[in-house]
């Protein structure tokens, strides 16, 4: 049993997804960073960061990744060895490794990664894959009668932590000349929200983990920005987007939370009610008078109780993925990014690619993301083509599941590079086997 364990490691810039091949879900999902709280001198390891007792106020973060690429190999191997020994309980010398790496990884980074895998951890064999092909593999196996698996191609849109890729996949291989990248991902969004909140209410520039949580819980993608800005301008309870987030006080609760979760979800009802703000207003107001007994005083921010309120920030932050130009970035938005990725492929592939767009990556979890993307994409695509956007059931784990699937296939052993081959041929020659 222990002789052919395959470890699947989706080494993302934000989260590491690690587990044993063949299982449905990874055994551990931990942030790919260490952090040192102000109170201590030691860096907390990734799994300690998740424990509810650890105090992460003003923690100083160290990440092995910069702009989506591995730069700090020492830190990464510390994190890996912790994961292998204490979280997965495997012995690297008797197991194989399936590792994901970012597209267009630099040769120098690849070489060092190989060194760590074979010389420091002594893995038996290694297979390196990129994430779009694994996502494609997983989606194709899940829906065998869909276009994705029939045509054997898809367009994987990965909105990740450090950047966003639109990558065409054909016959399980990423078409690398078609890949388009936007330098905007979850990390930039968190930092942007941090900047806004710090300027407008409370200084939270040091609270990355806290603002990450705010972003995940409160941000959403607006389907009509102009309308939503109008709504956000209103005062009192007419402002359906305003909601309050309570900061941790260190005594009663060590984690921040949304003050009124029902209030925070009001905007969902709004979009269902129809496009006209006046209509949705009436119904919403009716709802509120029934449901709410409390007066509008809860919308006031009490400065003595550490909390801050958000209104238009909730949708203006994810908005940047669709219009990076608004931020001063000289890059096209996500919809245009997709169109350019498709256009760089053979024209015969265009209709199939538009029909099999797969959304993956943690930043696609914003409510309304797929709908907005479709609204933006449709006018840019010739009307003879169908546009179909599928969301993964769990965008964060999608890549890992594809890897788990690939690693449990019978051909997997033949595809790997073994340690002896690495010692014989060196890193660069071995890499050719992965067609990278």
């Amino acid at each position, binding site marked *: 049993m222990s002789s052919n364990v395959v470890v699947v490691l989706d080494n993302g810039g934000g989260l590491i997804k690690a587990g044993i091949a063949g299982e449905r879900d990874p055994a551990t999902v931990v942030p790919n*960073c260490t952090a040192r709280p102000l109170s201590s001198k030691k860096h907390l390891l990734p799994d300690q960061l998740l424990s509810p007792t650890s105090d992460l106020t003003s923690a100083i973060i160290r990440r092995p990744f910069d702009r989506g690429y591995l730069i700090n190999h020492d830190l990464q191997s510390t994190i890996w060895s912790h994961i292998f020994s204490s979280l997965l309980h495997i012995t690297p010398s008797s197991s194989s490794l399936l590792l994901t790496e970012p597209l267009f990884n630099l040769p120098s980074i690849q070489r060092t990664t190989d060194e760590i895998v074979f010389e420091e951890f002594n893995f038996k064999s290694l297979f390196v894959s990129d994430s779009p092909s694994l996502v494609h593999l997983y989606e194709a196996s899940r829906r065998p009668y869909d276009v994705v698996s029939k045509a054997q191609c898809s367009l994987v849109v990965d909105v990740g932590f450090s950047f966003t890729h639109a990558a065409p996949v054909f016959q399980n291989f990423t078409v690398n000349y078609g890949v388009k990248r*936007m*330098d905007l991902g979850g990390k930039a969004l968190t930092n942007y929200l941090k900047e806004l909140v710090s300027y407008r209410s409370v200084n939270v520039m040091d609270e990355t983990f806290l603002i990450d949580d705010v972003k995940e819980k409160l941000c959403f993608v607006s389907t009509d920005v102009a309308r939503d800005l109008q709504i956000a301008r209103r005062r009192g309870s007419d402002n359906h987007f305003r909601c309050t987030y309570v900061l941790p006080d260190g005594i009663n609760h060590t984690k921040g939370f949304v003050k009124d979760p029902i209030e925070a979800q009001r905007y969902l009802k709004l979009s269902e009610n129809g496009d006209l703000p006046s209509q949705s207003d009436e119904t919403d107001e009716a709802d509120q008078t029934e449901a709410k007994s409390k007066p509008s005083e809860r919308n006031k921010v009490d400065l003595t109780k550490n909390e801050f309120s958000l209104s238009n920030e909730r949708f203006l932050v994810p908005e940047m993925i669709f219009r990076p130009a*608004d931020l001063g970035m000289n890059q096209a938005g996500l919809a245009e990014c997709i169109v350019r990725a498709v256009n760089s492929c053979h024209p015969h592939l265009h209709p199939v690619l538009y029909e099999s767009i797969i959304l993956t990556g943690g930043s696609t979890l914003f409510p309304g993301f797929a709908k907005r993307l479709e609204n933006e994409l449709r006018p840019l695509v010739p009307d003879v083509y169908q546009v179909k956007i599928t969301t993964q059931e769990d965008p964060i784990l999608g890549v890992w599941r594809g890897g788990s699937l690939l690693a449990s296939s019978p051909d997997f052993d033949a595809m790997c590079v073994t340690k002896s081959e690495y010692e014989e041929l060196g890193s660069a020659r071995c890499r050719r086997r992965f067609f990278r």
Partner: protein
Amino acid sequence: MDDDVSNSLRRMSTRARKVAPKMAAALASTDNRTQAILARLEALENDNPGAEIVEPNDDDDDAAAASLDEDDDLVFHKKHPKGTKRKTRQAKALETAKKAPRTFLELLHDANLESLPPHVPTYLRAAVGPPSSTCRRHFCTVCGFSAKYTCVRCGMRFCAVRCQTIHNDTRCLKFVA
């Protein structure tokens, strides 16, 4: 030099004298503004934006100890018998600088991707490129709503006089230096 300036200014009217520095600032500002935008985009990729700290590197001390001795011999050969405290600190700083991971942009520069033939897809060629339309929405930097006006001094946006006052009081020119 000061005299020269006052001499040349003496002939001008008082009004021109007041306006001139502002105008000069406005004319030079486009460069400053692009720099500010780039600095801001850079800040969005920063892990610890609030804290400007030097990594204490406490956990690496043991590993660094071996190579630290070598550095002592090489760089601080002459000072060796003297003040030990200062030497250690300097050596430590050198050590951190050497050990500090290089940023991705440095690695990218080293990889020399420009030298590859144009048909090879690389990191640089995968970038999506500028948007097809140059129109850009502007949001008020103070309150977030759509902003009609631009600050004449720093180029940030605001939507109303109220926001302008706040802007002038709190952040105007702070990010342009």
